[in-house]
């Protein structure tokens, strides 16, 4: 390779953009050409001057929030503002749209089973509890406070267990309405995830083992024990929900 060809490729060579064979040819030429070596040095000096002169303009910190809110405004996405209640609305919005879709699917599909409809109802109750400010009627991490709070409000006394030792913190209790009757709901928390445990008396009284379902991205485990129906629903993974269910059984 001679000087004119080397001159054409010297920058690409210094930029690491040449394939190996061309690079080797250039290096062979550079070994005994002072002019081309000088050109390479000059190129490298310019590069290191540019690289070392802090010529980079970093985005000012305020630009980030400005851009985020402009994008949200354009896309009409509910802003994650300071009021915590809205966070749930924003987070639940996709779920709600899926819920509406699922409902539409239920409407067109032929005669869904009662169990399926109840599962839908349970998941909807779970989602509804996360959407507003009505997660608990009696917030308490103390099982001995939560259990008596139900008396006088419903016609049964649900068992309330403290599972904080196995990583499920009790947040409190709530009254809800499922399967055409008032039910007890206990709310547990695992990291950032919430679990609703719905409890109500079973009609037949037969024991039933755990039945697992996945619905609209939520995991659901239902079982019947000592005359009570239990339904645990959450967005935590199934393995964790299973360990929750097993801890309750113990």
């Amino acid at each position, binding site marked *: 390779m001679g000087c004119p060809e080397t001159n054409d490729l010297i*920058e690409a060579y210094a930029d690491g953009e040449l394939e190996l064979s061309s690079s080797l040819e250039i290096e062979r030429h550079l070994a005994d050409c002072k002019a081309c070596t000088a050109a390479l040095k*000059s*190129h490298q000096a310019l590069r290191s001057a*540019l690289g070392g002169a802090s010529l980079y*303009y970093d985005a000012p910190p305020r630009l980030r929030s400005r851009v985020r809110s402009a994008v949200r405004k354009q896309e009409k996405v509910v802003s994650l503002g300071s009021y915590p209640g809205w966070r749930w609305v924003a987070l639940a919005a996709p779920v709600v749209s899926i819920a509406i879709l699922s409902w539409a699917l239920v409407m067109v599909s032929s005669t869904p089973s009662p169990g399926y409809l109840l599962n839908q109802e349970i998941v909807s109750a779970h989602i509804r509890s996360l959407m507003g400010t009505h997660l608990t009627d009696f917030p308490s991490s103390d099982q001995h406070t939560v259990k008596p709070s139900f008396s006088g409000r419903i016609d049964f006394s649900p068992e309330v267990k403290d599972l904080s030792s196995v990583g499920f913190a009790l947040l409190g209790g709530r009254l809800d309405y499922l399967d055409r009757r008032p039910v007890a709901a206990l709310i547990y928390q695992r990291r950032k995830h919430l679990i609703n445990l719905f409890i109500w008396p079973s009609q037949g009284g037969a024991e039933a083992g755990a039945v697992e379902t996945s619905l609209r991205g939520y995991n659901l485990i239902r079982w019947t024990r000592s005359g009570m129906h239990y339904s645990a629903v959450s967005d935590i993974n199934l393995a964790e929900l299973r360990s929750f269910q097993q801890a309750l059984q113990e």
Partner: protein
Amino acid sequence: MDPSELKRFERTFLPHMSAAYNLAHWLTRSDQDAEDVVQEAYLRAVRFFGGFRGGNSKAWFLTIVRNAAYSWLQRSQAHGLTTPFDELIHDVEDGSPGPELELLQSATRQDLLEALESLPVEFREALVLRELEGLSYKEIAEVSGLPIGTVMSRLARARRNLRQFLIDRGAKEE
């Protein structure tokens, strides 16, 4: 756009904000205009997000930033797009690299800022993407919508021009 899609958008493109701002600043040469261009680029990107098939998100986004900056330059009329570019005749003289090397090595930040700003916008763009953003020729070609050969010749001319600016300034100071 639903919030989960928006999250994905932000995860993909918010990390490129400084790259976007740096390019926009070098093209518009103004803090305020760079911010406006970056915001406009994000608004465009979110609209085109459905067409983004993964891959090089930085190059994809910088393409939008570049186009937003050029639209802005055209609107403002204060651009250097039509600045005639004089092909430089002063090449490195064989065997006398000493003074030039010293000059390049002793150039201050202010010298380099002015030298870069003196370049026509398309040469400035190529050099900023290469030297400050570290993009490959292929990525610059994608961002600027040019064949790689053109990228190479633009870079070469930009560097020659820059070097000459610094040499002329050095000569004036002496």
